[in-house]
């Protein structure tokens, strides 16, 4: 059976470290698949102007294109060229919640993420996405420092 490992990317160095750890782990498993996921932070309960709403679909497409071409595709390409079975997903939503949901949907057995990259104030007020993920995830989570 193929073991599916989910890697949460965030476009920073910590995400790269999570990716490196996942590669290391996958290389020790006979049949594995690496799923690289980038979640664009978004909430359906924010307030926008009518003009922003009218252009939202366009912006969404731009955001997905950007995240795919800059972050996910290079990561997946690098994994494949290193001989790994890999694919990528880009989705809008709450980072921790969406990462967990996509993992469950895709049959992932573990999530690997980098440690928090939120700044001090935000982290103290709301907790980081990593903290939220660790507390609410449906599968084991590995946090790479």
């Amino acid at each position, binding site marked *: 059976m193929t073991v599916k490992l989910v890697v949460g990317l965030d476009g920073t160095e910590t995400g790269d470290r999570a990716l490196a750890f996942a590669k290391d782990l996958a290389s020790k498993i006979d049949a594995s698949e690496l799923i690289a996921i980038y979640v*664009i932070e*978004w909430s*359906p*309960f*924010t*307030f*926008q*102007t*009518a*003009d*922003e*709403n*009218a*252009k*939202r*679909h*366009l912006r*969404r*497409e731009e*955001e*997905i294109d950007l995240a795919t071409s800059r972050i996910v595709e290079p990561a997946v390409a690098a994994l494949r060229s290193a001989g790994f079975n890999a694919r990528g997903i880009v*989705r*809008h*939503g709450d980072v921790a919640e*969406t990462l967990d*949901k996509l993992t469950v949907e895709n049959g992932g057995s573990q999530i690997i993420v980098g440690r928090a990259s939120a700044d001090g104030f935000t982290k103290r007020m709301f907790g980081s996405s990593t903290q939220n993920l660790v507390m609410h995830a449906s599968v084991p989570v590995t946090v790479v420092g």
Partner: protein
Amino acid sequence: MKTTSVFGLTTALAAAAASPLAAQDAVGIDEKVNQVFADLTGPFVSLIFAPFPGTSFPWIVMWLVIAATVFTLYFGFVQFRFFKHAIQLVKGDYSDPNDAGEVSHFQALATALSGTVGLGNIAGVAVAVGIGGPGATFWMILAGLLGMASKFTECTLGVKYRNEYDDGTVSGGPMYYISKGFSELGLPGGKILAVVFSVFCILGALGGGNMFQANQAHAQISGIVGDYPGWITGIIFAAVVFAVIVGGIKSIANVTEKVVPFMGILYVGAALVILIVNYDQIGWAFGQIFAGAFTGLGVAGGMVGALIQGFKRAAFSNEAGVGSAAIAHSAVRTKEPITEGFVSLLEPLIDTVVICTMTALVIVISQQMIINPETGNYMLNEAGTAIATVDGNSGVALTSAAFASGISWFPYVLAIAVVLFAFSTMISWSYYGLKAWTYLFGESKTSELVFKVIFCIFIVIGAAASLGPVIDFSDAAIFAMAVVNIFCLYFLMKLVKTELSSYAARLDSGEIKKFTH
């Protein structure tokens, strides 16, 4: 909508004109402009706000209330049958996770609400209760509940017939559903009616959605910091609005869009606190509302007076049938246009049934309106036109005094709220006006810029001058939108019925399912 009574405004202007100060200004440019506009637009304004013969009941209010009643009956009390479903849609229970990142039902609702919640809920209710007594609240609630069906009808059509462009942007509203819907039904005149609607929409946006707001914002600010020239407020507002709608400075819009809901919540929260503290009087207040609804409790015009004021304020506050909400709601991303109709019916509920009722309860409980201890009826002021109040307050000042009786510092918060509400209304109406403008003149960047610059110029004019006839005309233009819109909705409502039947059947059969979140 954030307007106070045009009738009240006209009365105030007439009073001002009679003062020695106004006499000195009579030769001023403002006065000349007023006169020219009054002569040109007077007949139109009189026509729109004309009362039924022998009554003081404006026919336009009856036009809106009859439409709301017809839609309520035609769609089998859709506002009650699908209320729970509307809440589920706003919560996102039926939103496809693959569409995450698109405009949600909640966002479309919040955007539309930011254009309607405001001065109408604060000043308008005080006018209604001040003239029509507590009983006006009962009729206001009834009109709000009926208005939910009007919103449902227009917003469903707004999404169904919007234009979706190749670049992913959308444009929608009555002008689109009138022209496309009429053509689909093989009816003539759709394009002409759409053009007439657009013209009224542009005029309404520049007037009620702009000049009146700037004017009221200046009145609030000068009320706190002291009198100073209105053009200063106008220039500042115009610069900020320009930065948002032309410069695309999102940070200002973002701050406003976050602060305005917060102010709305603060307002409702303050009202709740006052009601909780005076919980023992809530039963009495509702007693006054019900008794006043059918007896008038001594107000001018009795029961009919209460009914007129309640209906008028509700119609002016929630804009149901005007068509503006259809423009705001049309941006939502959904495969089922009718879902946005369900969501939009919450708008009059929040605006009129909840927020307006809160204001009315606070005013009644604060006992700012004087009751004759012998008869138990309200006492009228010297002129016999409104209920006598403790400090002679009316309009927003009455609301302010009522809140101050419970929370002494609240008038300052209220003043800030009024200014912010005025700003958010301007941003909303700049968009409504723009959509009507681009419908007439095309969606080019130049065409858009021309309208935006005109819009900003009108802010300065609105804040600087007391152009009563201009504002009266602009308010009349907003309600003229309702004349065209509702006329067309009567023809188009069968299209909504088809959508409703199909959706309801699929919902019942389980074909339309909740997504597990």
